[in-house]
């Protein structure tokens, strides 16, 4: 991390279209770590467990690479980097399909606390997140599956009542950050983020059977659980939305890591597989499909990178770009997954071939945080159209 620390001091005011050498080194270090700790044998082992992650690897990620706090300021125990570095982490995790509560703890809960918490709350909650000591998550969506915060019905003041669903790693989180509203508020008003201890007697958690077994989901029912409001209620809706926009960007980058892994595997297989006396990659049908896949991946990757850069410098357009990147990554990742199965032929549809692991992540990520059509509409609104 020493190379990275130098780069912190340079404030970036413009969108960068290339990663710095330090960022590339950071990426390489994570890639090496994940190649070692998260081969698909491990992914398959962990996705079949109820917890869905390996606490030892989580500890190593936290202690050796300080990943859960990469984006958390140093005064709260983090590494003090920003969105670009966070997205490098998620991209590499998406590539390796790492099974770990990173998106929930670092991306969702970490950003939520940073966006909403008072100084005191941040000082209390963030160090344990940055160090990996506690797992956390964010509960936004309710059983109706709506990603628009205005639709939240869970109510809270000092006690919280309602139901949340599709909560990532909700079954293992120690700390739940819950989006809820004060009684008799509606729409974007009266919304806030509340911290709830998972072990509270008023919290009941149930793991859901998720299509993507590498990302566990839970339903959480709150019946009078103790809740602490993070910050003020004033602009809670905005803080929730900001957290979701950051999550969309981190997810888009995670997705592009996965898409690249698939594309690489399709290219590799097409150079190796022989039919009719020649590598299938020498047939234009495969060749042109792969060229189209590369184009699609590169375009979506450019969007994901650009959005991370824009968020990092707080470019006013960044929330629009979050939607742009999420929509683009969703289409690109899923299409890449479908075509990677196709290029593998029959073997690509088997359980023993690894392609379906990424396919299911692609399918589920297309939906998570809102479908492409939802984000395209949001993009238009945010562009003022």
């Amino acid at each position: 991390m020493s190379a990275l620390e130098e780069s912190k001091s340079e404030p970036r005011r413009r969108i960068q279209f290339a990663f710095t050498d330090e960022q590339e080194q950071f990426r390489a270090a994570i890639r090496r770590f994940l190649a070692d700790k998260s081969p698909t044998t491990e992914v398959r082992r962990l996705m079949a467990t109820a917890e869905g992650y390996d606490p030892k690897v989580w500890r190593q990620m936290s202690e050796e690479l300080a990943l859960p706090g990469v984006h958390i300021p140093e005064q709260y125990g983090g590494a003090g980097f920003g969105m670009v570095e966070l997205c490098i982490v998620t991209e590499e995790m998406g590539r390796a399909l790492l099974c770990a509560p990173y998106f929930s703890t670092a991306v969702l809960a970490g950003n939520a606390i940073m966006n909403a918490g008072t100084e005191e709350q941040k000082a209390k909650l963030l160090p344990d997140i940055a160090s990996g000591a506690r797992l956390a998550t964010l509960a936004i969506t309710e059983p109706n599956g709506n990603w628009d915060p205005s639709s939240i019905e869970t109510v809270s003041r000092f006690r919280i009542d309602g139901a949340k669903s599709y909560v990532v790693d909700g079954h293992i989180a120690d700390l739940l950050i819950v989006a809820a509203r004060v009684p008799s508020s509606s729409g974007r008003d009266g919304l806030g983020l509340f911290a709830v201890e998972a072990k509270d007697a008023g919290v009941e958690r149930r793991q859901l059977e998720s299509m993507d077994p590498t990302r566990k989901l839970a339903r959480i029912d709150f019946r009078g659980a103790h809740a602490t409001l993070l910050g003020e209620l004033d602009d809670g809706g905005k803080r929730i939305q900001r957290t979701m926009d950051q999550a969309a960007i981190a997810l888009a980058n995670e997705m592009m890591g996965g898409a690249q892994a698939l594309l690489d595997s399709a290219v590799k297989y097409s150079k190796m597989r022989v039919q009719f006396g020649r590598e299938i990659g020498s047939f234009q049908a495969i060749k042109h499909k792969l060229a189209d896949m590369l184009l699609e991946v590169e375009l979506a990757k450019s969007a994901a990178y650009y959005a991370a850069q824009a968020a990092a410098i707080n470019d006013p357009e960044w929330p629009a770009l979050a939607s742009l990147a999420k929509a683009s990554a969703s289409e690109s990742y899923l299409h890449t997954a479908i075509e990677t199965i196709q290029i593998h032929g029959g073997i690509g549809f088997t359980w023993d071939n690894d392609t379906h692991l990424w396919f299911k992540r692609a399918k589920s990520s297309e939906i998570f945080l809102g479908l492409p059509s939802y984000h395209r509409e949001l993009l238009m609104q945010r562009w003022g159209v």
Partner: protein
Amino acid sequence: MSTPTEAEVRTEVREWIAANWNPDMSLLEWRTKLADSGWGAPQWPKEWYGRGLPHSLVRVVQEELAAVGAVGPAASGVRMLAAATLLEHGTDAQKKKFLRRILTGEDTWCQFFSEPGSGSDLAGATTRADLKGDFWIVNGQKVWTTSAHHADHGLLLARTDWDVPKHEGMSYFVIDVKQQGVDVQPLKQMNGHASFNQVFFTDAKVPKENLVGKVGEGWKVAMTTLAHERRGADGLAPPSKKGRKEGRIHAEERAENDKANEPYRWYPQRAGRVDLILERAKETGADKDPHVRQEIAKLMIMAKSAEWTARRARAAQQQGRPQGPEGSLGKLAASHVARGCARVHTMMTGTEAMLTGKESPREGIIAEILVSVPAVSIAGGTDEIQRNIIAERVLELPKEPRFDTGPFRNVRRN
């Protein structure tokens, strides 16, 4: 002897049924009667468990069997492809040994054609059969075999000569599946089902007399099997729909069908369940979303058009006109429809589509669609192979230049 009239056939079979049918028989007992009388496969030759009737009169027999709710001969799975192939290429000894037990359902069959290294390129098979004394010794691996774990016999395509071009070096055998040297393993798919097997042959034995056709003619014989597969079941009695369904025989038949159909349970989901689209639109409220309405309309237009295109193909065939391009296009259209369904089902279902299993929408059916559709553009010939066929056979474009001619030994392979 002249062909009997429809009325004669109807009278004769009706009388025979009245004298023999009884739903409290065992399935085997009844099918033995069907096989021995020739009414089970009336279009087969008289000397081979049939009555030598023209195809046009088979319907009459089926109608009469159906009228009383009588069960037909065993017809599920690969057994009827085996019968058709043996009737065309088998020796008398083979016909005698296998055909009757096909009709009675005593034997179950499977097909050993595809290999891990030869999928699109079926003629690239490398499973070998070497003649040692009175036996062909088989070594290699086959894959995508349906119900091999239940099968008694397998239709095997294996390479017997490596020094001739690929299509000329294969032979066709009937292999006993239940022997040491044949190891049948389930092949699990990404949707969790295990509808197929992979089968490993290690010095498995095939008696000389089980060679079908001549040595080196395996490709030709296999083409017969595949042609019948494409044509679908061969005019044999379908499960009867009318009549009483009580009695021992029906229970036995249902058990047989359940076992035979088990591997195909997810096939409707693989095809995308276009039948659920409009229902789901109302159920989910997606019918209120102008953009989703457009996507639904696009999908339904494609699905309807594909259906009408298939009907045009059938109508042309019935009129004895050249079939036209419509038939060959169906498989490609089915891929588009299935992929479109997966997309639209996702749009309509929304966040719930992240779930699977009992708690998920339609008790897991929607989730099963999403993880099954990728198979539709691969199974039975990839979309890429279909496009080649359409381009070369329908549009008569110049053939792809070949790189797999000459002695197979020298052809590049996996």
